């Protein structure tokens, strides 16, 4: 007679059983579904667009026989769902296909262009955070004063000024007239090929190699576009910081703290600011994600070989493999940053645990 070894129902819901495996499983499932959905949507958009992928490969002068050969080579004779299944399988094996435009593996292309964007976006975000957050706090503390007006003006200009225009003017002034920074591109022509590629982040690679002249040249190239992106980031971050801080500074616990005789510095930074950290994490993560997505116009003006201009140029050249690959990478970054900000939430706010 078989024995019933199943635990009693209440045992399965034991409050002492750890919850994290289920949560982890749920999170992983959510990520998988999100990425699959992203793949499906981008793949289908690529297929329903009124673009002949064969012509994109062979050009308009190819013969019918060449057309037919490439049509079969691309698997376009198969049903759409079968094509999607093949694509997902390839992506799971790290194969995004070959770029029509560069003739290279899309994964290799992305490995080459993404570090350029990562480096630019990281520096831009750091500038945005280190200037934007204090500016927002000061604007809230000195509400209505010239500091506040200045912060609001900075925010307004950042929101309303086309980055394309500001980039060109920045180049004209700081590169063309003053000569304070280097011109477009990541590195001067004399420094090409000196530093071996390890991470793809030029500043880091140059530092690792101890090539400080290359580091200086790379920094001279990156600082203007990074400052430009940082400015647009700080406009958003300072505005949000000011808004969050104002909400906190009007709270009763702040009044209580002041009544207790705590210094203003203590009140602002130890009490009010501590409570906006959680909201700021989301704002900064979003700002960072937006920059990582690639600031296409900035990349074009500064001839910065990043993922934004890569995807845009690919789209204009009907190079759908590259567009799909790039979109999947960006989507994955968004998901990863969301998870990261969730984790930070838990760190900063014990209630979220």
């Amino acid at each position: 007679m078989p024995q019933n070894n199943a635990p009693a129902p209440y045992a399965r819901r034991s409050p002492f059983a750890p919850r994290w495996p289920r949560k982890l499983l749920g999170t992983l499932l959510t990520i998988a579904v999100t990425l699959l959905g992203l793949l499906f949507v981008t793949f289908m958009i690529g297929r329903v667009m009124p673009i002949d992928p064969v012509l994109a490969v062979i050009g308009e002068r190819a013969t019918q026989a060449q057309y037919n050969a490439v049509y079969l080579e691309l698997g376009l004779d198969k049903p759409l769902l079968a094509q999607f299944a093949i694509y997902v399988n390839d992506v799971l094996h790290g194969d995004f296909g070959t770029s029509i435009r560069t003739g290279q593996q899309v994964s290799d292309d992305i490995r080459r262009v993404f570090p350029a964007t990562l480096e630019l976006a990281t520096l831009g975000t750091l500038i945005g955070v280190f200037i934007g957050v204090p500016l927002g706090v000061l604007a809230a503390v000195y509400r209505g004063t010239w500091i506040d007006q200045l912060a609001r003006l900075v925010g307004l200009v950042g929101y309303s000024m086309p980055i394309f225009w500001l980039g060109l003017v920045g180049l004209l002034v700081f590169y063309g007239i003053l000569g304070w920074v280097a011109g477009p591109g990541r590195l001067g022509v004399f420094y090409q090929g000196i530093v071996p590629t390890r991470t793809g982040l030029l500043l880091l690679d140059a530092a690792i190699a101890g090539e400080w002249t290359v580091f200086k040249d790379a920094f001279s190239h990156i600082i203007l576009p990074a400052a430009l992106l940082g400015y647009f980031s700080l406009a958003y971050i300072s505005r949000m910081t000011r808004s969050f801080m104002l909400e906190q500074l009007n709270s009763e616990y702040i009044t209580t703290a002041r009544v207790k005789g705590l210094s203003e510095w203590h009140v602002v930074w130890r009490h009010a600011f501590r409570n906006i950290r959680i909201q700021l994490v989301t704002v900064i993560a979003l700002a960072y994600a937006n920059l990582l997505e690639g600031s296409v116009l900035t990349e074009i003006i500064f001839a910065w070989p990043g993922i934004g201009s890569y995807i845009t140029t690919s789209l204009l050249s009907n190079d759908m493999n590259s567009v799909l690959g790039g979109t999947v990478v960006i989507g994955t970054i968004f998901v990863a940053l969301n998870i990261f900000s969730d984790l930070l939430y838990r760190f900063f706010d014990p209630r979220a645990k």
Partner: protein
Amino acid sequence: MKTSRSFRAAALTAVLLGSVALPAMAETPPNMLVIANRIDDIKTFDPAESFEFAGADVSRNVYEKLVNFDPLDLEAGFEPQLAESWEISEDGTEITFTMADGHVFASGNPVTAKDAEFSLRRAVILNKTPSFILTQFGFTPENVEETIVATDDKTLVIKLDQKYAVSFVLNCLTATIGGIVDMATVMEHETDGDMGAEWLRTNTAGSGPYKVVDWKPNESVLMDLNPNFGGEKPAMERVIVQHIQESATQRLQLERGDIDIARNLSPEDIAAVKETDGLQVVDELKGRLMYWSANQKNEMLSDPKVVEALKWATDYAGMSGSFLNGQYTVHQAFLPLTFLGALEDKPFSYDIEKAKAALAESGFPDCGTIEISVRDAQERIDIAQSLQNTWTQLGCDVSLIVGTGAQTLDRYRAREHDIYLGAWGPDYPDPNTNAGTFAYNPENSDEAGATGLLAWRNAWGIPEMSEKTLAAVTENDTEARKEMYLALQKEHQTVSPFGIMFQQIEQHAMRDNVQNFISGGATTAASYWVVTK
């Protein structure tokens, strides 16, 4: 909305930049040439596959050919390079090349007839897009072992499927696909029987003045001297071509002295450069033609008098003198100027009275609805709008169908357009490259599916003119051949549904110490080895 904001911003910036004259600053080293260009079209360096402008520039400087053009005398036509001489068989179907001495690949291997045999056979077998330039002579993957044969290290024999004008065959061998690769080096890198195709995408194995040292797609191409180059040592020991998309950025770099040549400046930036000390602008006629064509499946547009009216109602001078100023010149024949047999006649000018008279003689005196298919490129939309304005004066109801390049092309290839507005550039430097598409369509049925022929795309069946086009490719007397093309173009101007309007001018801005930069004119690509500073 976002786009128009960007355009407004660009215009504002152009005004701002235009008002600021920068002092000339640093200079690049005297033995280094730095060029800003749009090179995002480079997919491969393999001469058997490369068919893009920026790729052709690299290829011309890396690979030598059996015959080639002298960059300092392009009008002289082809001349010996790897082949020192050639002989034609009596029946005109066999050409025997004798290889020249002294040509050595970058690897150190000497160039032999075996390398030429391998390179030409390989291009036919791989059957990539430009392969038609060779296969039009009857070469197939199946017959190349008999038709392209190196009898020894010095002798290469090619057997054609019929008699052709020798100038036609040799002109085709000057195209990128005629580049001779180092067989031993290439085959060392063969994988899965690809004849080294994968390796040659990103590497070079030629005997030309330069070798590619580094290529970062959409970023830069770096070329250094081929240490074994047999010719005179070029003054520029290193050439760097940077991908710079924006005209304003290229101009800033040129003014700062960070680059020597800017190849994609807008008319506004060109005008500013002309006013700047230390800089110069050099114009070169290119092979690209801008034209409109009328689909002969459309009943109204198949009336020759309607097409004639539209040709008279096109404001050629108005366009070239305004928004196309400096970028295009008026040209009305299917062979670009500088090609053998190019016709300079411009029989049509904007004359609305003559246009109305022609329309009155047609079966459609009140005109009718006309849709112009045009891709979403600014200069083409500007031209389409000009046509819309002037054709409307004839009473035609003209609308623009603006689409992406692919959408517009799809419609064109499917013969679904009324009027197609587009551009055409030669594939190889022989008159047949354009005659064979503008004036050749022996079988006009839908089933023929000759989508590569412009005459077929416009449903213009021309069996008699096609015979004349074919006759011109077999004429060995160059002067007689030239006369045949002149006559063909004159007839084409009168009877064809093509309204050829303009030929492209490329304006290169450069430092004034740069001499002999030739981007290849209408017939070939850029030649860096003759540049001096």
